[in-house]
């Protein structure tokens, strides 16, 4: 396990600034602005008596994929990256990100030189809360496959903040898996900065846990940059899933695609917010968004906000959203051929997810396939 305690002086100052200003009394009210969801469904359970920052998190770097030597402290990052990172975090207005900034034990820098790497976020000591900060850098022209496995256990709240800089012409495929145990709650904040002709494809699989949330911010800064988000949210019991994305087209010819699907059984709920912003005077930007929810039980709830904010006329943007139940005819068809109701459901759910994951890199298949089958079955049976 790597534990490099590294904060640059300026980051340290910023962290101190926020640690003095943020009250350790973690209050839901403060959080309300950032979550569009039935707040009654969420409880962080952090009482003022147990300030969450006293317990700090760690990151497990997998030896198999990521060589120990590749994990560096922030101070080892090139000066221009440090500068960019600092300016980014100075502007942070998200309440949780500020907390993360103030209480992250270490700021890691991953240059991601090799072809693939895997990071597991876990809390080996079963602490109340975990805060993690990472900066990843994909060098020019490089192609990388990054897997982030969030495995918080008995954690009241895990907050992970990851910034990814994609240099010009680089490509990244990122697989993020939320696989938490029953009481755990986890929020992963991903911020992408895309340079000229860079591409980032993100697969966000939220499989289990009381609350999981992926919040994605992508700055399409370079011309012809491309960003794609594929989210699959599975919920059962009283779980809550949240996917929030803010894709900002800051350059001409940039393109983004968002595809999000939530499958909910029992009393589970999901909130999907997709926000696409096209800045003024941007030419030929393309943005497409499709948010879907399937409700499998009477008590499941789905909330969708597909939003477009278009400031330029030379664009081609569209969004669609649909919420409904499984196709009853297809269900009947399968049942009439001797497939049990649950199995039929499982089949149909699998079919619904196929489109979402069809371009997943083969390197990720060993991690995803079995897991997905297992959790789809769990959702289908409820």
């Amino acid at each position, binding site marked *: 396990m790597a534990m490099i305690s590294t904060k640059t002086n300026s980051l340290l100052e910023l962290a101190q600034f926020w640690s003095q200003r943020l009250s350790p009394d973690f209050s839901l009210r403060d959080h309300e602005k950032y979550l569009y969801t039935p707040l009654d469904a969420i409880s962080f359970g952090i009482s003022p008596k147990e300030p969450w920052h006293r317990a700090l998190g760690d990151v497990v770097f997998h030896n198999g994929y990521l060589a120990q030597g590749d994990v560096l402290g922030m101070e080892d990052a090139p000066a221009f990256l440090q500068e960019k990172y600092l300016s980014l975090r100075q502007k942070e207005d998200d309440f949780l990100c500020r907390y993360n900034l103030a209480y992250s034990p270490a700021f890691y820098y991953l240059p991601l030189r090799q072809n693939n790497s895997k990071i597991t976020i876990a809390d080996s000591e079963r602490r109340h809360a975990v805060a993690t900060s990472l900066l990843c850098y994909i060098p020019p022209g490089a192609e990388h496959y990054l897997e982030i496995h969030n495995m918080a256990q008995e954690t009241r709240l895990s907050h992970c903040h990851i910034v990814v800089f994609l240099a010009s012409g680089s490509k990244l495929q990122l697989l993020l898996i939320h696989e938490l145990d029953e009481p755990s709650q986890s929020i992963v904040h991903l911020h992408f900065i895309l340079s000229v002709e860079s591409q980032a494809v993100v697969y966000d699989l939220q499989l289990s846990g009381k609350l999981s949330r992926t919040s994605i911010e992508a700055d399409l800064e370079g011309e012809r940059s491309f960003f794609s988000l594929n989210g699959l949210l599975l919920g059962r019991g009283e779980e809550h899933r949240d996917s929030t994305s803010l894709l900002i087209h800051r350059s001409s010819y940039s393109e983004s695609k968002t595809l999000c699907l939530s499958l909910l059984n029992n009393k589970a709920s999901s909130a999907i917010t997709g926000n696409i912003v096209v800045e*003024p*005077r941007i030419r030929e930007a393309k943005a497409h968004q499709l948010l879907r*929810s399937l*409700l*499998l*039980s*009477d*008590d*499941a*709830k*789905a*909330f*969708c*906000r*597909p*939003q*477009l*904010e*278009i*400031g*330029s*006329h*030379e*664009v*081609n*943007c*569209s*969004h*669609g*959203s*649909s*919420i*409904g*139940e499984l196709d009853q005819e297809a269900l009947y068809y399968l049942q009439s051929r001797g497939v049990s109701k649950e199995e039929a459901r499982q089949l149909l759910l699998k079919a619904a997810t196929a489109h979402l994951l069809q371009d997943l890199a083969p390197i990720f298949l060993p991690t995803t396939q079995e897991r997905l089958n297992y959790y789809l079955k769990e959702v289908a049976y409820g």
Partner: protein
Amino acid sequence: MKEILDKVQEDYEAGFVTPVEQDILPKGLNEDIIREISRRKNEPEFLLKWRLAAYEAWKKMPEPKWAKVIYPPIDYQAISYFAAPKKKIKSLDELDPEIRATFERLGIPLKEQEVLAGVEGAPVAVDAVFDSVSVGTTFKEKLRELGIIFCSFSEAVANHPELVEQYLGSVVPVRDNYFAALNSAVFSDGSFCYIPKGVKCPMELSTYFRINAAGTGQFERTLIIADEDSYVSYLEGCTAPRRDENQLHAAVVELIAMKNAYIKYSTVQNWYPGDREGRGGVYNFVTKRGLCKGENSRISWTQVETGSAITWKYPSCILKGDNSIGEFYSVALTRNYQQADTGTKMIHLGKNTRSTIISKGISAGKSVNTYRGLVRISSKAQQARNFSRCDSLILGSEAKANTLPYLEVKNKSAVVEHEATTSKVSEEQLYYLRQRGLGEEEAVYLIVSGFCKEVFRNLPMEFAVEAQKLLSVSLEGAIG
């Protein structure tokens, strides 16, 4: 292209002022002003109490800031809340010729044998509201024969207080929102309509709102009740003089549809939009809501929004009765510095309820056009269906179009679908029309009216003609 832009004309035809002697209450808002408004209108005690309760609620409310519109703070003490022509009249024949001329110039007939805007067809009954008061209602007698009550709100308070007391505020309660609370406290007049059981209203009913006096706001209330098995088609139009100051218009419209009733409510909103530099114009902060109370009831909102400096308006349907239907068809055109944040709310409570939302936004110049819509399916709304389609067309490089839908589903049997697109006028379509000899402006107009066709189709004939005309005038010079 630049020449076309330079050609932009001040083409707001309704921007004139009528020189008529008026009785205006001093500026400011306090309990005494509200008592004075109530006293002048000889209102019963219950209404005064209702107004004062609304005022108390309003004082404690913060002004909403969530809409994507920017405007300087409004000084509510600098507005006069009541302005009425001095001459009191008993019948339409006594109407001040200046006022009659005003409405005639706007194409609104105040003589019963005339028809709207020169269109041949069925006659239209008009309730004309001039600043704070209703100056006349046509075809009252003919409608009364069928049991239909169509009159100004003040008359309804005087003659049918029991209906007013029963239904006023039942759809939009006084504490609903900031502007509805303000309206409830100071509303001065408006239209009232009651369609009795089994009656299909034989003509279109219409209200025409006109702001004339400077330094005032208009706060009117419309209440329409359609009893079982009845039908009514209601039209609403509005204009104001061209002025450099901003004027506030905060209205409330409540519709109630009982079992098997159908209310069709159409609006052509053409308040003064401000000049090319964004000076002046009306702030149109309106709360419109319909309640489908009985089974199989239906409420249909159709709106064409071309005016107002700022629009803040969400005509909504509460689908309470089983099998009830809510519809919303909207065209919102903004240009210069206009800002519109408009859309709808469809709240499904009953079983088998259905709603359709078709919204077309066109933004030109430096304007901002936002669609904001909510579709909520409650846990008891079995088999609810919703379809929404929101398209935006951007004309010009500095215009903005936002689409902000909110979908909330708590019942698995619901089917909710939402689609939206944002684009500019297709080069191909433009090229096709140009090579067939059409000028650029003409070609764009043709494409835009095709874009809005789905909505215009739902307007009553009289209004469809007016809306088309308004669209062409508004698009003039807005193409760049």
